[in-house]
């Protein structure tokens, strides 16, 4: 049982701190983090360099030459205790995914563990609507909540040293979109040709925490065609009209 009082501030060395609003994966809590993040950005406080919103906390990098830990912590606690701006529901995106086979080599395992057919795993995964709780670890890695509980599966005991770019995976109650080749302990169920990060593209990133994401299945031939378009700089992921 977590008896910690929230919100609380903890130092991350002398140039950063984290303000924790809770300790759970919860859309309301996460929305509050994003509201706090928006309030911090709007205040343009001297010394604040940048922020990283996460599930339930806001990481704040700052310059100790311009502001000290105690005054910044007090200011943030005050902000978090007050009325915060509504950040809205974000934008909505549809991502093409090719499920299973060579595109998602853990699909048979996920199917076996969930007691569902591979087609049903893909259908349920694509049928969900997911919230972007946070982005982090690697550029463009997107942590999504809202997975069908039947598909939840604890992380692999032995993380893979590498997994392909565009991997769509399941880790616990989360699913994720991974942009770059990367190690992972999550289960690989498919791949998207869309790039959530592309330093060559004019819009290097296009997703924001708080956006919602859904998926639609595409066959391997369509994947190849979409991948060529993504390589040429197209987003490939489709914005959904509100």
């Amino acid at each position, binding site marked *: 049982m977590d008896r910690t009082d929230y919100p609380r501030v903890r*130092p991350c060395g*002398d*140039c950063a701190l984290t303000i924790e609003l809770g*300790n759970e994966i919860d859309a309301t809590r996460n929305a509050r983090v994003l509201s706090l993040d928006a309030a911090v950005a709007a205040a343009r406080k001297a010394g604040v360099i940048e922020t990283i919103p996460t599930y339930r906390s806001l990481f704040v990098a700052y310059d100790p030459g311009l502001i000290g830990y105690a005054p910044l912590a007090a200011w943030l606690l005050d902000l978090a205790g007050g009325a915060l701006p509504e950040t809205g529901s974000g934008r909505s995106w549809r991502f093409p995914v090719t499920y299973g086979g060579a595109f998602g080599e853990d699909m048979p395992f996920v199917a076996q563990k969930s007691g569902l057919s591979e087609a049903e795993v893909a259908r349920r995964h694509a049928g969900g609507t997911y919230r972007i709780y946070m982005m*982090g*670890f690697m550029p463009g890695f997107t942590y999504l909540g809202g997975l069908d509980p039947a598909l939840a599966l604890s992380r692999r005991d032995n993380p893979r040293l590498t997994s392909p770019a565009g991997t769509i995976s399941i880790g616990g109650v989360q699913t994720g979109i991974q942009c770059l080749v990367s190690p992972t302990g999550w289960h690989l169920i498919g791949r998207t040709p869309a790039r959530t990060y592309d330093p060559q593209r004019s819009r290097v990133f296009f997703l924001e925490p708080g956006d919602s994401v859904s998926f639609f299945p595409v066959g391997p031939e369509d994947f190849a065609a979409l991948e060529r378009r993504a390589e040429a700089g197209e987003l490939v992921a489709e914005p959904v009209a509100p």
Partner: protein
Amino acid sequence: MSVIEVVEAGPYTSVQDTGRYGAQRYGLGTAGAMDTLSLAIANVLVSQPAGAAAIEIGPLPARFRITDGAVRLALAGGVRGATVQGRALPMGETVLLAEGDVLALRACSQGVFSYLAFEGGIDGEPVFGSFSVHARSGIGSPYSRALLPGDRLNVGGAAVRGAERSLAAPTRGSGALRVVLGPQDDHFEPETIAQFLDTEWKISATSDRMGYRLEGPALRHKGSPNILSDGIANGSVQIPGNGLPLLLLADRGTTGGYPKLATIISADLGRLAQVPVGSVIRFQAIAVEEAQAEARAHAALISSLPRAVRDVGGGDLSSEFLLASNLAGAATSADDWSI
């Protein structure tokens, strides 16, 4: 504009400045020089801003050739033998290289990372405000990866000047590396925190720009070794499931799901970066206010570096010297020297 070509470069040789800020919320890490004080010394010697881009050279040998024009450069940081056409190049001093000259750097004899800065700077397009290479993210300028033989960097041409310049590296502390406890020190019993602070940790061979792994006793978590992923500062002391601390450094991920027992203070990060694999380090916990006083003192030290630069030798430029260093270029008459 002059050109320097990479002839030989070990791993971890890349262009770095003080890092990339503003896109950590999208997972794009800061990268940046492992030792910003040494970066500043090299830069200030060649009249560049302290945080400008320079070549960070890992512990192994490297060679560079000037292929176009003349180049004035300075080498600072990890101590290593350096020669230009067989002549020794002292560290912490500027030197003028002529077209065709080869700068040969031996492996570091002390330290890990050296910095090579150029008068006029390295030419490139900053990405998110920085030249720093983060190889796994495929970002950086002028190359979005570590340097390889054959790479060519445009650098500012050398100015005509009577004297080379030197800068004595400020002495650095040699004791324990200082840390501020947290953000997740409450995931460990007080005895475990004491064990972390009492242990002489050895830097593992599997260390790199992402992080230095430590060898020593496995530290026990109070409960689960997993936390909800949150933000990671430079110098975070992360304790993963196996209990062996991982010091997360310039090329770290932006967020992670293991508890962070402490964070190394920013003023000591450069000193840590220069500790070679196999060496032993210790930690000492200090208050965040003290760490911030150290950070301000460190920033003041970097700001003071230009005032510590001294001329070496001095004297007039001979035309023979100018010709030898290719500054005279295609000058055929005195008129060519008037602007």
